[in-house]
């Protein structure tokens, strides 16, 4: 009786230990390596990624995430489509254009719910509304208008029935407010989270003209990946998005920590400027009406319509193949 009992006990113990070792091998499994191509240089714009990394949120999802900073030369959607990276940050318009060019790419979340794209003029210039652009020099990034800023500028002018020929388009050669203060142009195109945050630092007064106030609203920094990856490894996408959204939740709740964290990724960053940027970002990321990261159909529809109007794309694309909120919705 006793020997039999001890045999059972022994077998039980062996089973438990094998189960435990099984668990151990699962948890000890190599983390999934994930690379992310950011849309621009390191900054608090990507605070959620930094927070997820620093707070161990990625590790908790068994992810080993590498964040690659962007630059004017790097085209994130191309990096994604060519499988050089797993995820990337890119503009909604660029994504649609890339799709029309046959690239395999799909938006799974947005960082900013409101577009940060803004046109700036010096306060003393008197340029306050788009009609004031007529006869003035307005900065663009490319004569092909193939970037979010240029597309939105153009779309805005068209929504207001302003003939772009009446506006003198000047290619921006110097990034920053220097283009305005130097007199190189009258209107400069940028991000509301960037240049306006520098006004105090650079001691200039700006008039801000937002394309979204004129019916032009696009997502400036969506998180995208290949639809192939979504199909093949939806749980990986889910884990990454969940961790990143949680990273942004942390970033919003602890906004004051973020500037320092960003500086850890790029020591050239100006801490004061990062602070101002972070402050400006909060309301762009969390609009309060829907969970952060959520994309609105109407924004995508408008974006597509503008791109169709401006002939960047020739045919409309099924938006359900362009973006999805399914991963954001799974986040608590």
């Amino acid at each position, binding site marked *: 009786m006793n020997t039999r009992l001890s045999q059972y006990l022994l077998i039980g113990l062996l089973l438990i230990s094998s189960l435990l070792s099984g668990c151990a091998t699962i948890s000890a499994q190599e983390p999934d390596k994930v690379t992310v191509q950011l849309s621009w240089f390191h900054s608090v714009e990507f605070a959620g990624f930094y927070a997820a990394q620093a707070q161990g949120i990625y590790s908790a999802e068994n992810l080993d995430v590498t964040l690659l900073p962007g630059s004017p030369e790097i085209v994130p959607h191309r990096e994604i489509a060519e499988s050089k990276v797993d995820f990337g940050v890119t503009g909604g318009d660029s994504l649609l254009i890339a799709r029309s060019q046959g690239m395999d790419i799909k938006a799974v979340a947005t960082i900013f719910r*409101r577009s*940060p794209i*803004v046109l700036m003029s010096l306060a003393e210039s008197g340029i*306050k*509304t*788009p*009609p004031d652009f007529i006869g003035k020099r307005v900065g663009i990034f490319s004569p092909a208008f193939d970037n979010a800023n240029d597309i939105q500028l153009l779309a805005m002018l068209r*929504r*207001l029935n302003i003939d772009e020929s009446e506006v003198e388009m000047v290619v921006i050669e110097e990034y920053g407010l220097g283009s305005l203060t130097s007199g190189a142009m009258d209107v400069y195109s940028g991000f*509301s989270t960037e240049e306006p945050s520098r006004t105090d630092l650079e001691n200039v007064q700006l008039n*801000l*003209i*937002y394309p*979204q*106030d*004129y*019916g032009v*609203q696009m997502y400036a920094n969506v998180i995208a990946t290949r639809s192939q990856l979504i199909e093949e490894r939806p749980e990986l996408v889910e884990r990454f998005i969940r961790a990143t959204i949680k990273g942004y939740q942390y970033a*919003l*709740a602890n*906004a004051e920590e973020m500037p320092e964290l960003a500086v850890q990724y790029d020591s050239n960053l100006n801490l004061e400027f990062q602070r101002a940027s972070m*402050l400006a970002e*909060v*309301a*762009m990321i*969390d*609009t*309060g*009406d829907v969970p952060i990261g959520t994309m609105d159909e*109407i*924004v995508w529809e*408008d974006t597509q319509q503008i791109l169709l109007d401006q002939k960047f794309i020739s045919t409309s694309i099924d938006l359900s193949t362009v973006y999805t909120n399914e991963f954001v919705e799974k986040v608590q």
Partner: protein
Amino acid sequence: MKIDDNPTSASQHPLRLSRWLFRSFRVNSIRTRLLITLVFVVVLTALVISGTAALASYWDRQQYVLDQLEAVAVAKETEIRTWTDNLQIDLEALLFQQDVLLRVRSQLQFFVADVSRLQRDLEEDFMNTVEVTGRFEEIFLMDREGRVIASSNLEQKGKIFSQETFFQEGLKGPYIQPATYYPALDKTSIIVVIPVFDQDGKTVLGVMAGRANLNHLNKIMIERTGLGNTGEAYLVGLNRALLTESRFPGYQPLKTYIRTDGTNKSLNERLNGEGLYLDYRGVQVVGVYRWLPQLQVALLAEQGQTEAFNAVYTALIRDIGIALGAVAIFVTIGLFMTRNITDPLIDLAGIANQVAAGNLGLVVDISRNDEIGELAHAFNSMTAQLRGLIENLEERIHERTQALEAGALISRQITTILDIDELLLQVVNSLQTTFKYYHVHIYLINESTGELVMREGSGDAGRQLKAQGHKLPRGRGIVGSVAERAEPFLARDVNQIANFVRNPLLPKTQAELAVPLRKGKTILGVLDIQSEELGDFSEQELTLMQSIADQIAVALDNARLFQSLQATAAEAEELTRHITRQSWQEIGSRTQTTGYTFTTQGLMPASNDWLPAMDRAISQRSLVQYADEDGRSPTEAAGGVAIPLILRGEVIGVIGIERPVERKWSEDEMVTIEAITEQVALALDAARLARETERSAWRDQVVSESTAQVWSSAELEEVMRAAVAQLGDKLRASEVIIRLGTETQLAQN
């Protein structure tokens, strides 16, 4: 042992202090345990009471603060609802004005070419409303495309809000756009919209919107009645923007974003509630939060916990102070109480230790009526009893030792004194004086009559009784029966004894002890002891007296034996001497020559020669030396010695030796003379005995009296000749005389 060895000196040195404390508060002492228990009970009670009170007042206070905050929040919520309702009412009232509606409709429907006038009028209407009501920052009108075609703020004209929720919703019906951040305004705004219908009221022509002026909300929220010094009420939009002013500097409304437990609960879960949490400054607050669904904002009323619980803390500190004071008082009382209880015990223990060490004379000086007093009293009586017991014991040991010593003394006397009368006298006197008896006497049995005769008694009574020749028949009285039964008898109270016969000379006798004097199975007498004290005599005394009696018996027997032996010996000696005397008396008559004289001329029988010194030697029975001063010697002056011949104590002759005076007698010569004399006496006796034996034998054979004459004296004469010859020769004496005869015979010379 004592708690307060010397606390003041102890405190002078930390080591000494700690030692003192250690000794004073040994864990296993009653004092420490009492004190610890007392302190524990007091502290526990104080803790429980003040803890419960503090907790209760903490909860009460929290509830009170929360209730107050709740009341404030509810009041403000009502005000806000009114304000919100008024927003829409005012907007609708504006549109209700016929001329305004007309202008709006024509503006929307016809887009009149003469923009300037119509638009200016409309914009004036809008501006007036903004100004009059004060509820709006801006009122604007959008066409169906979301384009602003008229606004109280001219700069806003031309904007397109087609994508904005307020426009989309406004097409459907009245709507309040929750707090939303608008980058162009760089702030969060609340926008109220109503649709503008055509005359038929079916087709929506556009949307009229009012951007709320939050100043009035500020006024509502800034009213801080019931919020205390650190309390505030504020509104937070869905996008976490602080909509109203903070009472603390550095938090700009509409640009500050708040994510606290309060805002998260109310905005995420759309709940009302309350709690303790960190506010947006990171300060601990008591807070009440309410979700306002109409405006889609959270209303928070908070108060710093420091202020909220200040009263509690003050009360707590006061309570702790009181509790500590009470504890201190109780501990002090406890200290005195325990000292009051334990100090006498410690003293008692100290005294008990000393008593244990042998100091029985100590008395505990505790005069209390409580248990300790009783204990002390019991202890004292116990010590007293112990003391009495030990003293009694010592006394008894002393008595016993004395008795034994007396017994030993008497034993010694018994063994040393051979005279019976003296012995008995000594014994009775010793017993009487040593043991302080009333009377001691000894009876001996008269062997011939069998009566008990009082042989010796102590004191006058003893003497008188002895003089009277007091005697008792066997079997009468105590003494008689003891002699009869040969067993000791002890009567502690003689009055109880039936056959007690009181001696008139001994009237005080109360107790009597009588032991037989036994020699084997023979009873020699009785040792009788009497006491004046009732109940005197112990078993030990009886045993002792019996042993003394036994010794007396042995001594008596010994003395009797000795006396009879002595008598026999004296008799024998007398007989011997008589025989010797007789034998030698007859010698003279039976021998021819009874003396010889040796001179330088030779040896001749001389039965009549004599020297005067010889008389003296016989009478003195010893050697006599003399110098012939009287010139008795015929020839010349001479000196000499005379020595008797003694046999078995009887003089049988005498020897005299003379020589010239110039030759002195040496000591050696004296010794030689004595030795020779002794030998001569023995030789003479031997010669006589030989002759007597010869004669007896002969007589036995012949049985003839006449032949006695034939008795030869040859041997005797030979001995005498040899003796004088030798003495004369050896001592170079001028004359040596030997004469035989008894003292009486020789005295006749």
